[in-house]
C-alpha cells in the first residue's frame, strides 16, 4: 500500500501508452509493438504489487481511491476504484494476458499494426476499469467503452465473416448493458437519488436502510442479470459467442475468452448477489438449471464442431456454465471454485486460443479434418497443447481440477442432482477435448502441408511458458489464491444467508471451513 493511487495507475497506464502510440509516425511498426508490449508488461508488474500487498484477512475493498468526478446538485458520480479478493485476481488475469496477446500478434498482425495495438491497450484499460470500479456509473462507463475496441478488433482484423460477428457482438451486449443502465438509474432513485457508490448502496441494502420491494428487487435483479448473462454467456444468450470467437483475431479471442467472459460472472458476484440477495435466492434454482443446460449443451455442441476454434468457443459456454453453477449454489466451496474456475478458464482457454492461433498461422486452416499427426512434426507444440488440454478437462495436478472439484463439492451440498449433471458435463468435456487432440495431433500425418509444418519458435514458447507455469502453480498449490479470495466471498455468502428465503433452505452448514478447501486442493 505504499504506492498512492496504484489502482488508477494500473487502470489508465495502458490507455496512456495507447495515447502515446498515436504519435508514433507511420512505418515504425516494430517500435509500436515494443512500446505496446513493454507498456502492458509494466502494467502487469505493477499489478503484482497488488497481489503481494493484498491483505488476505480482509474481505472489504482495498487500495481504494475515490474522488468527485461529476458533481452537480442532483448527481454525484464519483471516480471510486478499489479491489477485493474477487477483483484482485481478475485484474491480474487481465494484465497477465494482455502482454501475451500482444506477443502472439507479433507476426500474425501485419496490417494496421498501430491501431491494433491501440485497441488492445484501450481494451485493457476498459477491462481493468470494470474490475476496479466501485461507482455504478463509472462501472457502466468502463463496461460500455470496452465494447468499442473489441468491436474494432473483431471487425477490422477478424476472419471472413468478421463484420457479421462484430455487429452481432455489439448488439447483443448493448441490449444487456442498456437494460442494466435502467436498473442502475432505478436503484439510484430508489435510494433517494443520493449516491451511485456501490459500497455505500451495498451497505445500505445489507443494513436494511434501503429496502426494495419483492417484485421490484426481482426486476432489478433481472435487469442486471441479463447484462451479465449475455456476457458470460449463459444459455440461451450464448449465440453471439461462437461467431465472435471464431472471427476474432487470436489476440482478440484470447482476451475475449480470457477476460471478457469473466466480466459477466464477476458482475454476478459483485452486483447481483450483494445488491439483490433475496431475488438471487429466489431465482437460484432457475439459474442453476440454466447453467447446467449450458454445461451439457455447450459440451455436446463442442463435440461435433469441425473447426478447432469453434470447438474451443463452445467449450467456453460449457465451462462458464460451471462457474455460474458454482456461484448460484451459494456455498463456500462453490463460490471459491467458481472464482478459481474463472482464472482457470481464462488461462486454459486463453492458452487454447493461442495454440489454435499458432497452428492457424502455419496452416491457414482450423478444420480438424485437415490435420492429423501434427505431433510428429511439431512435438513441442503438441506437448504444450496436451498440457493445456489436460488443464482444460481438469486433470489432477493442473489448475482445472481444483476449481472443478470445488464447484462440484459445493453443488453436491446444495443438490445432488446438480452435481451429478454438472459432473457428466465434465466427462463430456474430456471426450471432446481428447478426441479433438487425437484427431489433430496423433495418428498418421494427414497431408503434405502438415508434414512441412514447423514447430513453435522461441517467441511462442515464451508466450506459453508463463501460462503453463501458472497452471501448475494453481494445480499444485492453490492456497495463495484461495486464501486471498476467501474473506470477500464469505462476505457475499453472509449477505445471501442473511437475506434468507421463504423456505429457509439456504442456510447451509459451512463446514468444512475455507481452509479445508485449501487442504483438499493441495
Amino acid at each position: 500500500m505504499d504506492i498512492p493511487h496504484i489502482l488508477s495507475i494500473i487502470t489508465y497506464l495502458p490507455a496512456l501508452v495507447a495515447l502515446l502510440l498515436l504519435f508514433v509516425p507511420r512505418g515504425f511498426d516494430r517500435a509500436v509493438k515494443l512500446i505496446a508490449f513493454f507498456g502492458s508488461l509494466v502494467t502487469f508488474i505493477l499489478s503484482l504489487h497488488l497481489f503481494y500487498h493484498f491483505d488476505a484477512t480482509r474481505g472489504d475493498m482495498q487500495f481504494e481511491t475515490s474522488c468527485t468526478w461529476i458533481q452537480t446538485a442532483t448527481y454525484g458520480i464519483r471516480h471510486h476504484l478499489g479491489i477485493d479478493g474477487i477483483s484482485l485476481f481478475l485484474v491480474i488475469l487481465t494484465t497477465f494476458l494482455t502482454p501475451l496477446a500482444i506477443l502472439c500478434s507479433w507476426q500474425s498482425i501485419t496490417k494496421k499494426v498501430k491501431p491494433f495495438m491501440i485497441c488492445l491497450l484501450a481494451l485493457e484499460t476498459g477491462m481493468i476499469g470494470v474490475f476496479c470500479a466501485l461507482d455504478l456509473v463509472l462501472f457502466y462507463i468502463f463496461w460500455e467503452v470496452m465494447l468499442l475496441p473489441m468491436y474494432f478488433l473483431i471487425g477490422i482484423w477478424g476472419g471472413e465473416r468478421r463484420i457479421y460477428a462484430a455487429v452481432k457482438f455489439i448488439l447483443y451486449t448493448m441490449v444487456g448493458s442498456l437494460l442494466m443502465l435502467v436498473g442502475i438509474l432505478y436503484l439510484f432513485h430508489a435510494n433517494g437519488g443520493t449516491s451511485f457508490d456501490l459500497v455505500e448502496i451495498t451497505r445500505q441494502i445489507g443494513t436494511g436502510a434501503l429496502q426494495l420491494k419483492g417484485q421490484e428487487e426481482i426486476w432489478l435483479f433481472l435487469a442486471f442479470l441479463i447484462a451479465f448473462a449475455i456476457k458470460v454467456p449463459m444459455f440461451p444468450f450464448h449465440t453471439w459467442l461462437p461467431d465472435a470467437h471464431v472471427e476474432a483475431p487470436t489476440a482478440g479471442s484470447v482476451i475475449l475468452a480470457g477476460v471478457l467472459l469473466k466480466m459477466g460472472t464477476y458482475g454476478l458476484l459483485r452486483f447481483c448477489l450483494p445488491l439483490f440477495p433475496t431475488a438471487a435466492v429466489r431465482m437460484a434454482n432457475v439459474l442453476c438449471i440454466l447453467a447446467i443446460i449450458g454445461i451439457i449443451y455447450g459440451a455436446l455442441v463442442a463435440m461435433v464442431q469441425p473447426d478447432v476454434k469453434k470447438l474451443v468457443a463452445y467449450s467456453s459456454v460449457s465451462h462458464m456454465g460451471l462457474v455460474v453453477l458454482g456461484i448460484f449454489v451459494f456455498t463456500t466451496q462453490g463460490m471459491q471454485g467458481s472464482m478459481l474456475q474463472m482464472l482457470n478458464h481464462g488461462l486454459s482457454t486463453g492458452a487454447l486460443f493461442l495454440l489454435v492461433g499458432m497452428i492457424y498461422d502455419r496452416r491457414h486452416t482450423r478444420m480438424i479434418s485437415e490435420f492429423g499427426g501434427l505431433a510428429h512434426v511439431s512435438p513441442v507444440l503438441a506437448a504444450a497443447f496436451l498440457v493445456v488440454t489436460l488443464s482444460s478437462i481438469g486433470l489432477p495436478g493442473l489448475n482445472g481440477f481444483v476449481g472443478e472439484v470445488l464447484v462440484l463439492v459445493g453443488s453436491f451440498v446444495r443438490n445432488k442432482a446438480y452435481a451429478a449433471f454438472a459432473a457428466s458435463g465434465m466427462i463430456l468435456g474430456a471426450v471432446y477435448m481428447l478426441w479433438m487432440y487425437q484427431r489433430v495431433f496423433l495418428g498418421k500425418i494427414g497431408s503434405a502441408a502438415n508434414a512441412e509444418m514447423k514447430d513453435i519458435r522461441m517467441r511462442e514458447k515464451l508466450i506459453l511458458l508463463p501460462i503453463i507455469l501458472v497452471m501448475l502453480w494453481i494445480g499444485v498449490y492453490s492456497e495463495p489464491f484461495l486464501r486471498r479470495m476467501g474473506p470477500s466471498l464469505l462476505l457475499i455468502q453472509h449477505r445471501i444467508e442473511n437475506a434468507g428465503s421463504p423456505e429457509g433452505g439456504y442456510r447451509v452448514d459451512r463446514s468444512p471451513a475455507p481452509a479445508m478447501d485449501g487442504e483438499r486442493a493441495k
Partner: protein
Amino acid sequence: MMTNELMLLAPQIILVITGMVLMLLEPFTAPAQKSRLARVAVLGTVVAAFSLMPQWNIHPRMILKGMFIVDNFSVFFQWLFLIIGAVTAYLSMKFNERESIDRGEYYALLLFACSGASLMAASADLILTFLGIEILSISTYILAGFKRDDARSNESSLKYFLLGSFATAILLYGIALIYGGTGSTSYGVIYQLALYQRSIPTVTLIGLGLLLVGFGFKVALVPFHSWVPDVYEGAPTPVTAFMAVGPKAAGFAALMRILLQAFPLLSHDWVNVLWLLAILTMTLGNVVAVLQTNIKRMLAYSAIAHAGYILVGIVAGPDAGYQAVLFYLVAYTVMNLLAFSVVLSLSRQGDMHVHLSDYAGLARKSPFAAAVLSLALISLAGIPLTGGFMGKFYLFSAAIQRGYIALAIIGVLNSVVSVFYYFRIMVYMYMKEPGEQALEPETVSWPVQAIMVLGAIGVLFLGVWPAPILELAARSSFALK
C-alpha cells in the same frame, strides 16, 4: 426604462441589423470576396452573444408589455442559436463558393432564422411565439431552396414550404381557439385564468391539441415527420445541418415554455399524449433509419429519433427532465453539427457522395475525417465518454425518477437499434475496402476543419466533464418555474 428594454433586446437588434447590412453589402462585394460576408455574419453572432452576457443570471424580466421574457432560459437558448448560426455560416463558406450559391442573402437569412428562433425561446405570448416561428420557418424555406438550379433543392424547399405552412395554419388555429377559450394569448394570463376556472373549456383543450400538432411538425415528431427525409436530403448540406439542430431546439424551447408556463395545470392531459408521441417518434425514427443508405436521409431519421428522446425529458417534467432536455439539446447540437461537418467535408461538386458506399474504406484515405465522424456517431449512439451518453443518461434518469420506467426501457432499446445504423457507417469506413468510386481525399477548408476539431473536443468534453454545462442547464431550466 425604454433604453433598458432596448439593451435587453440588443442581441435581436444586432442580429437583424447585421442581416440587413449583409444584404446592403452584397451588391458591392466582388464575386471572389463573397466569403467575407460569412465572416460579417459570424461577427454579428459573436457581438450578439457578448451582448447577452449581462442578461445571464439577472432577475427574470418581462419586456415589450409582457411579450418578451428575459431569463436564464431565454439566454441559454439564444446562446445556443448563435453558436448554431455561427457554425452554419462557417460550414457554408467554402460550400457555397463551390456550389456557386455564394450570396449575401444566404447569411442574412441565416441570421434572421437565428433571430426568429431566439424570439421563440424568449416569448411569453402566443402571438410572439407565432411570429418567431414564422421568421424562422420562412428563412429556412428559402435556405432549403437556395440552390435554385438543383431540382432536389427546389423539391426540398417546396415540400418544406407547403407542409410547413399547413402546420403553421394549424398552429395558428390552435392559438385562436386558446384565445377563444381563455381570452388571452399571454402565457401568464392563461395560467392565472386556469387557476380560477372551475373546468377547462373544451375549446382550450382542442386549441392545445392543435398547438401540439403544429409544434410536432416543427420539431419533427411522428406522425408529423413525413417531410423530414426529403427536405433534409435535398437541401444544401450546411442548411440541412442547421435544420437538424436550430428549428428543433427552438421548437422544443417554445414548447417547454408553453407547457410549463401556460398549461401546467393541464399536464395530465398533455403528458399522456407526449408519452405516446415520444415512443412513436423514437421507434419509427430508429427503425426506418436502419433501412437508409443515404447518409443525409439516415441523419434525417436519426434527427427524428432524437426528437423522441428529447420528448422523454419533457414527459418527465421539471426539474430533472427539463434540465436533461437542455443538456441533451446542447449535446445533440454539438454531435449533429459534427457529423454534418464531416459529411460536408466529404461531399463534392453538386453536393454528391452521400451514399453509404462512398464511405467504404474512408479510414485509410482520410483517417482524420473517419475518426471524427466515428466520434460523432458513437456519441449519437449514446456510448459513454461522449456527450450523447451523458445526455441520454440524464434524460432516462429523469424519466425513471418520475416513474416512467416503460418509457425508459423503450428508449434504451431504441438506442440499441440506433447502434446498428450508426455503427454501419463505421463498418463501411473501417472494415470495408474502398470501392472504385470511393472518395479521393480532398483538402478540407480550414473553417470546416476547425469546426471538426472543436466539435470533437466538445463531444468529449460533454462526455467526460459534463458538470459545467449541466449546471448551466439547471440554472436555465429553473427560470421556467
